[in-house]
């Protein structure tokens, strides 16, 4: 970690966003992660995303569990709300917060350990409930905070820093999420913000569970030869299924596809994700097709990235349960706590 904080100066010619804020206003404290950690790039991508979408930081709730990844909410949007919860329990805490106040923007930060091992059950059920949140998995294939043991996302045959080979099958967060019926599933790479930022924008604007699985190399324990989650390996094996652009609601979609098939995917707030197909026959709206395609990639050791799956008709938790739109905190006391008589009447229904 650095002893000095990031100087409070900036390039005078940089633009401010619609709120009159500049990108530096979306930063957090200086990172205490290892220098070169992929997680820091993801924090930077989130800073850029929130800045460019002109989201007021106070409308954002950041939640996390335990692990290197779960430390990162401290490193972006210091003027927003945050909850650093118990290991693997980020989805429950987010669920509670979301149930109480659906007007906020929820971004959960988790890792492969936090979500695919101890929190696997929570992860699946958050998807099942279709919680309206962006669920970010900072995926590095190791337990970095406990010095580099294989995590549940480590590939068969990949080696630990000292040479030990992993023989257990990996859990693929994206495949699991598609299988569970998440409405928005994407995969990115911390070393490619050009692709990552539009995917994050889409995830924030999607109504319902939006999972973004981000390959985020651990420079200290998993960036060696033999690792399948290193910077070099990822660069060699990842390929974009499509080029992704995010188009805000007010903007018109201008089609200049350069000969490629161009697919605009509409999000709930009227914005669009604009996909330029790189992989010709890939359709992210076809759940079974996407699943099969990705499964094959996994078997071949390829790392496909981009918007993997989207369900344009996803119905989130609140819609499905017909909950009140007003945040509970804004309701009058009489409405939220109607008194003993109403309680007795309600209980009476179950007698």
């Amino acid at each position, binding site marked *: *970690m*650095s*002893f*000095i904080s*990031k*100087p*409070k*100066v*900036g*390039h*005078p*010619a*940089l633009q401010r966003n619609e709120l009159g804020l500049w990108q*530096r206003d979306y930063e957090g404290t*200086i990172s205490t992660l*290892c*220098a*070169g*950690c*992929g997680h*820091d*790039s993801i*924090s*930077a991508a989130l800073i850029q995303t929130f800045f460019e979408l002109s989201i007021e930081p106070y409308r954002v709730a950041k939640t996390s569990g335990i692990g290197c990844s779960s430390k990162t909410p401290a490193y972006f949007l210091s003027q927003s709300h945050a909850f650093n919860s118990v290991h693997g329990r980020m989805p429950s805490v987010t669920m509670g917060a979301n149930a109480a106040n659906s007007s906020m923007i929820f971004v959960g930060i988790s890792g492969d350990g936090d979500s695919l091992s101890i929190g696997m059950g929570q992860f699946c059920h958050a998807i099942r409930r279709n919680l309206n949140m962006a669920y970010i998995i900072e995926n590095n294939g190791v337990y970095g905070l406990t010095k580099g043991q294989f995590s549940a996302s480590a590939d068969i045959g990949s080696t630990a820093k000292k040479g030990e080979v992993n023989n257990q099958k990996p859990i693929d967060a994206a495949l699991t999420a598609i299988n569970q019926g998440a409405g928005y599933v994407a995969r990115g790479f*911390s*070393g490619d*913000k050009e692709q990552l930022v539009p995917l994050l924008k889409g995830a924030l604007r999607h109504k319902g569970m939006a999972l973004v699985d981000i390959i985020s*190399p651990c*420079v*200290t324990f998993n*960036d060696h030869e033999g690792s399948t989650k290193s*910077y*070099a390996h990822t*660069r060699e094996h990842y390929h974009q299924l499509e080029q992704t652009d995010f188009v805000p609601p007010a903007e018109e979609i201008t089609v200049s596809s350069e000969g490629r098939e161009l697919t605009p995917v509409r999000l709930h707030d009227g914005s669009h994700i604009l996909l330029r197909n790189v992989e010709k026959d890939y359709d992210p709206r076809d759940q079974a097709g996407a699943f099969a395609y990705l499964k094959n990639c996994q078997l071949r050791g390829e790392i496909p990235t981009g918007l993997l799956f989207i369900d344009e008709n996803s119905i989130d938790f609140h819609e499905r349960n017909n909950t009140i739109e007003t945040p509970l905190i804004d309701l009058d006391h009489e409405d939220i706590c109607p008194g003993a008589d109403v309680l007795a009447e309600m209980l009476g229904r179950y007698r």
Partner: protein
Amino acid sequence: MGPVDTKNPDYYHKVVDCQWACPAHTDVPGYIRLIAQGRFDDAYMLNRESNVFPGILGRVCDRPCEPACRRVRIEEKPVAICRLKRVAADLRNDISDRLPKAPKQKNGKKIALIGAGCASLTVANDLLPMGYEVVIFEKFDTTGGLMRTNIPVFRLPPKVLDEEIDMIVDMGADLRLGHEITSMKDLLEENFDAVFVGSGAPRGRNLDVPGRYDSDRIYIGIDWLESVAFEHTDSIGENVVIVGGGNTAMDCCRTSLRLGGKRVMVTARKPRHLLKASDWELEDAEEEQIELLLNHAPLRMIIEDGKLTGMEFAIVEWHEDENGRLQSTELDRVILPCDDVILAVGQENAFSFMERDIGIEFDQWDVPVVDPVTFQSTREGVFFGGDAAFGPKNIIWAVAHGHEVAISIHKYCHGEDMTERLPDKVTMESTKMGMHEWSYSNDYDEGSRRLVPHVSLKERFKKLNIEVELGFTAEQAIAEVERCLNCDIQTEFEAKRCIECDACIDICPVDCLTMTEDGPEEELRTRLNAPSTNMEQALYVSEALPQTGRAMVKDEDLCVHCGLCAERCPTAAWDMQKSLISIPLAVDQPVCQKKRRNA
């Protein structure tokens, strides 16, 4: 644009904006860091090496370094470099044993220097330690030239002048005061191996308006300042009009206030932003309640009964004509009543002592033809420098000329090609001390520029020789040095170590880094993370990066040298390295002596 060669001595030199802008290329970050460490002697000696007169320049330098300071581009106000220089001079101990000494054994070469001003003294300073015999001819009975006669004592005390000039003269110069050269021809017939003309630009320009010669209370600025300096003049009328908007006008008006002037008006033809006076000299004059009358074009002197009673001006408005030239239109006329008028409208060379048939050519403006590299005139062995060479500039330029002239004289006297000079050199040294520790203060200091304390307005006018500026204390100096952005601690990049993790890009506070495909410079500048608007600042482009083949591009413009890119780099592809630029002086030039200076 391909990989940039940072081994080229000019590359990192340009990044050190202050050093690059200084005509003598003083290692500014180097010496102000020494000041912050309390090493005033070392700071003084480092200064003296390049600019020879730290105490003098620390008060009256034209400071081209300050407008160039990177801090101006970050937050407007530069580091108070000039005033820090003075701290080194004020607080140093006796450094006499560290000064260069002339050897007992002379090299048999004898050099004549005309004028005992800053240019000649610099030449003497460089040549004396090498065994040259140096004869300085000075028409006045004092040394220092215009530094003494034109800069008022309340800005530059004679003690400071004497001390630094003596350091040079005491090396054994043959100083002949009161010895005016009246014939160059005669001098050339004497047995000198080379002659240097450092006679300055001692003639003030005249302003030929009606009535100019009808009163004896109309003076030429630099002549008037000179007569004040020699105590021939010790009073002036209550109402004084100064004509001119340059630094001499500022000295004249402030001197007038101390000699009895009550209402002192400075009139200039141009609007404020076009005045030649330095901002800080204008500010100092305004602090003393000088009336600055802009857009006043002089018309005539008002003489009543043989007595000067005022001066008439046209009040003008400026606009650009179709050729972009400024033209004025008269709006009104005004008479400023006054007892004295001082004309400070510029100065020029005076070479009346120089015959025109001795092989020294003059151009159409009667300025000697001088080679810009060797400073030699069209006559072999005759050199010009300082204001005498290319017209009036300032002290620091004269010093820079002096160093170059010394190299030329040294080479000339040994029969070597004067155009073959040692190139500048850059040496790099890592400042890494530990995981995230550097041997320099890398944290950005948000403090604003410290003001130098001044003697109160009540006190300062009591006597002419009360120095107005008090100078920083050691504590104030330390605080001001922290504002320095350490532009000499370079971000040195090694492409083959980079794993393209983006850590440096993400942390850079001023977004000066981009990883992108290489391209032609102009086009590349459009693809950077932050707008690249300052074309005078270089772009660094690395070799191709190992994983993607992109290049690391750095816009040098706004880098605050905080070192965070290097701290966040997992592979030490970035390192913070001190660049030391060495500018060769005469003593470094390998001629017959073969003796090199310890750098």
